[in-house]
Structures are given as structure tokens and as C-alpha cells.
């Protein structure tokens, strides 16, 4: 399936959208570009660490609410478009710890209404999660100690980028999986973009290496360099220059210019890549760089 068809079919105005990847690694950039082009409105965006994908969606004016453990690109700074929108009360947010978000996805993945945690106790985070209706104070029914009950979170659709997938949706992720496996299992629909779509049966000799079962996957899109400028472990490093350039623009309030030039001004992700890197030397360099690091 193409990214255009997959996004048209599964991402609707008002959707709760789960985002895979983390910081500068394996963010579903090709799928997020396509969401920006089609511009469904009033999205709620959820994830553990939300990074570049969230900032693009906020800069495009498509987001009304976010739920996350953190919103940043780590040493490249906070998400400036998201921060500005929050400071101007243009969107609402529900803050969690990373474990709290991961636990809510796990509850969704297991089909149970909530899971307990012993994080959050004694924090303002807990007060606000209770006020938002997604956490409650409880007591361990066996031992009697305080616990926090976290409500299951089931995204309408999740977007992830993986190393390899077969046409059915069996997917292999190289490197850390962040929160993605449980988020995917908790979601009603899942769009997977993959560096490479491999022939049916490719994983049959070693099915234990499949990270995500086709049971959960709604659509598979092949997109080489689909996480660029973020990294895919074993395939290519992140682009320090591109991330820093985006952050400079976003900090100056000019993320929308970046979108107009690179996303809405292009027909698809391949055109974006061709314009950004006409002779492919940037991509080849990032591929070689990853090879030296692992």
C-alpha cells in the first residue's frame, strides 16, 4: 500500500494517533509527512517520548491534545512548536512519566482496564493525571501499600517505522523498541512503514525474530530512509545537520516554512528525499556512519 492510501484510510480527523520512535531514532517521518499533506484535524497525539513527528503535526496546526512522557529532541532541545502552542494554550496536554505511558499502553495491549504502578506517588504529575481521569490512587489488595491505577490507553491508529516487514505486516525492529510493541498491540489500527518489504515467507525460518506480529498490523508501506533525518539502527545514523537546522527554524517560530518547503511542497517522501539529497550522498554518508558505529 502507499503511504497516501494508508493514511487516507486509517487517520481521520479527531483520531487518537500513537507515534513510534523516540528522540532521534526511528521516528515515522514518511507517514507523518503524509498526515501533514492530508491534514486531518483535531488530532490527539500520544506516545512516550514525542519528538520531531509531534512538532511537525503541531506546526501544521493539526493537534488539539497530547499525552506523553516527554516532548523533546534531547540535546537538540525541547519541541519548540509544541512548547509555543502549550504556552499560548492552543492545545492541551496530559503529562506522564515514561513508565506511566508505557504501562497505559501495556494495559491496552493486554485488554485489561488498568494496570498499577508505584511511580507517580507524591508528585504533581499524579494530581493532574487524577484530574484528567486517567489515574486513581489505590491500595494493593494483597499487601495494603499505596499504588496508582493507570487507565488503559488504546490509540485509534499508531504510526511506526521498522527495519523490515513482510506484506502481511510481520515486522522486525533492529535496536531498542521504546514503547512501540505494546502501543501497537493496544491500537485499533496500525500503519507500518518499513525500510524494506521482504517477500512472504522470509521470516519463516526464524519467526522468533519477528518483533511485531501481522495480527496487529493494518497496512504496510515500503519507504527506504522513511525515518530520515532520524536514525534506523544498523541502517543509517541520524542527520545531526538536519535535526539542528529544523530546531533552529522551530525555535524561531518558522517550522511552518520548513513544512511548506519540504512537506506540503512535495508530492511524497521520495520527492522530499530527492530534493533534500539530490545525489544520495547524504543518505550514503549516514549509512556508512552507522556502519562505523555498530
Amino acid at each position, binding site marked *: 500500500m502507499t503511504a497516501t492510501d494508508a493514511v487516507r484510510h486509517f487517520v481521520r480527523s479527531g483520531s487518537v494517533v500513537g507515534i513510534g520512535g523516540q*528522540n532521534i531514532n526511528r521516528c515515522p517521518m514518511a507517514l507523518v509527512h503524509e498526515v501533514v499533506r492530508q491534514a486531518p484535524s483535531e488530532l490527539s497525539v500520544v506516545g512516550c517520548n514525542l519528538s520531531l513527528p509531534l512538532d511537525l503535526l503541531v506546526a501544521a496546526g493539526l493537534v488539539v491534545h497530547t499525552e506523553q512522557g516527554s516532548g523533546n529532541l534531547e540535546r537538540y532541545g525541547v519541541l519548540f512548536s509544541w512548547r509555543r502552542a502549550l504556552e499560548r494554550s492552543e492545545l492541551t496536554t496530559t503529562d506522564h512519566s515514561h513508565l506511566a505511558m508505557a*504501562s497505559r499502553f501495556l494495559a491496552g495491549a493486554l485488554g485489561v482496564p488498568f494496570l498499577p504502578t*508505584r*511511580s507517580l*506517588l*507524591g508528585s*504533581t504529575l499524579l494530581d493532574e493525571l487524577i484530574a484528567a481521569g486517567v489515574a486513581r490512587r489505590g491500595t494493593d489488595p494483597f499487601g495494603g501499600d499505596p*499504588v496508582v491505577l493507570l487507565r488503559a490507553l488504546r490509540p485509534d491508529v499508531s504510526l511506526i517505522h521498522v527495519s523490515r516487514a513482510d506484506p502481511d505486516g510481520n515486522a522486525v525492529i533492529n535496536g531498542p523498541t521504546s514503547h512501540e510493541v505494546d502501543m501497537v498491540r493496544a491500537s485499533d489500527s496500525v500503519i507500518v512503514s518499513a525500510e524494506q518489504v521482504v517477500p512472504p515467507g522470509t521470516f519463516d525460518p526464524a519467526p522468533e525474530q519477528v518483533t511485531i506480529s501481522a495480527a496487529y498490523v493494518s497496512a504496510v508501506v515500503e519507504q527506504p530512509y522513511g525515518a530520515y533525518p532520524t*536514525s534506523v539502527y544498523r541502517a543509517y*545514523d541520524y542527520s545531526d545537520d538536519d535535526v539542528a537546522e529544523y530546531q533552529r527554524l522551530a525555535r524561531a517560530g518558522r517550522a511552518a516554512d520548513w513544512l511548506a518547503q519540504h512537506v506540503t511542497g512535495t508530492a511524497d517522501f521520495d520527492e522530499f528525499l530527492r530534493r533534500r539529497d539530490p545525489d544520495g550522498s547524504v543518505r550514503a554518508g549516514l549509512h556508512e556512519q552507522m556502519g562505523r558505529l555498530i
Partner: protein
Amino acid sequence: MTTAPTLAAVAREILVFEGARQIRDGDCVIVGTGLPLLAGLLAQRTHAPNARLIIESGVIFPQVIPTPMSVVDPRIMHNASRLGSLIEVLGGLVQRGMVDTGFIGGAQVDEFANINSTWVARDGGRVRLPGSGGANDIASHCRQLVVLTTHERRRFPARCDYVTSPGFVDGPGGRRRAGLPPVHIKIITELAVLEGDDESGRLALTALMPGATVDDVLANTGFEPFIADDPEVLEVPSGYELALLRNELDPDARYFPELRSSNE
């Protein structure tokens, strides 16, 4: 490249050295990027060769190479024993109680050692920060918590604007009342070490950095910490440690813009 005859550590380097000293040999330590990562690596290269690092993104026991910009940078995954998931590290190791020492950052630390990384009040509005990430989980469950931060009055209010990560919550016994396990907390700055435990329930000044005075600390702190009778004066880092840090652990000074600009 020429090297000055006597190397002097900049303030934020001193935080790394003192941070490293909190790690015992054999400790399981959770760090992010930046100064805490350097503290962990320095400890491994000096007094704690058997200290093991874990990273919240799912990276377990890596042999880090310079210089990761993120917890999912391939440089921080180098030669890891496993690349797993957030819930595996923050749930299966941190909440599970298997981590000795945790390092977190924050924009504010208050007199009860509560830590804020969510938003701060400024000019009648709010400045939004990245949020907890794994910080709340690390502060909730590690046996020892270390914060490396610059010592400015606005960073040390009597009460945080928002408690992202619990210290002693509301004073002595606060963690027990909240249902949290006990913790020893050290706040390390370029002026001093402030520390406390569940019994004291608040921060006390226990050590001074070389050249700093109690008055310097009080002038830059928005509350009055207990002051130990005879605060220890910490040692100046050795030239060996400094050379290790600058030449091998962060050779391009990615974490030290102050060093990059002074060299340019």
C-alpha cells in the same frame, strides 16, 4: 592543538567528577546523556570498573563511545548486552528495585529535594520544559538519586512550581506517607553538595567545592538548607581525570559549549 600547562576544570566539569564519585564499584546505574553519562563513564574508567550502566530507552550494559546526543543514539548502544524497551528498563529494572543509583536533571530543586522538569513560572506565564521522561520513575525507585545542576537562586526555590519527580515530598517521613521507598539524595553543584535522606526529610549542605564558601551557597539558594557543622571541602579533580574527560569521553566537547567557544 596546544594544551595549557595547567588544566583548570570548568564548573560543569567539576559536577561530572563529583557525580562519578557517587558511583560505587558494582553499582547498577541509570543515566541519560550529558553530564550524568560522563559521570558514569568516568567512574567506570577510574574507581568503579564494574559499575554497569542502563539507559531508559532499553539499552542495557553498553560500552558507550563518544558522544551520544540522545538515549537512542547508536553511540550509547555500542556493545550493549541487550537492546530492549522502555518498560523493560523503567519497569523491569527501575521499578523492580534493581537499580542502585539514578541520575536525573531538572530546572528546579526545592528544600525537600523535589525536582521539577515540567514547567516553571516566569513573567506571569509558564515556560514549558520537556516533562518527566523517566525522571519520575528513577526518583521514585532508585536507592540513591543524584542531580547535577548549576547553582542559581532561581533553580533552588523553597517550593517547586511543579513536582515532576519526588524527593522527600513534604519533609521527614514524606516518602513513607506517600508510599515511596526510602532514598538518599545528593544535589551536586559547582558550589556545594546538598544532601538528605528520608529521616532528615530536607537538604543539608554537607560539602563545599574548592574555593566556595557557605555564604556563596546561601546567596544562591532560595531556602535555608541545614548546614553541617564542618562541611567537607572537596578535592580538586586530578589532571588525569580531566584529561580522560576531555580527550576520551567527550573529545569534541559536545556537552561543553563553554569549552568549545573558549577554544575557538
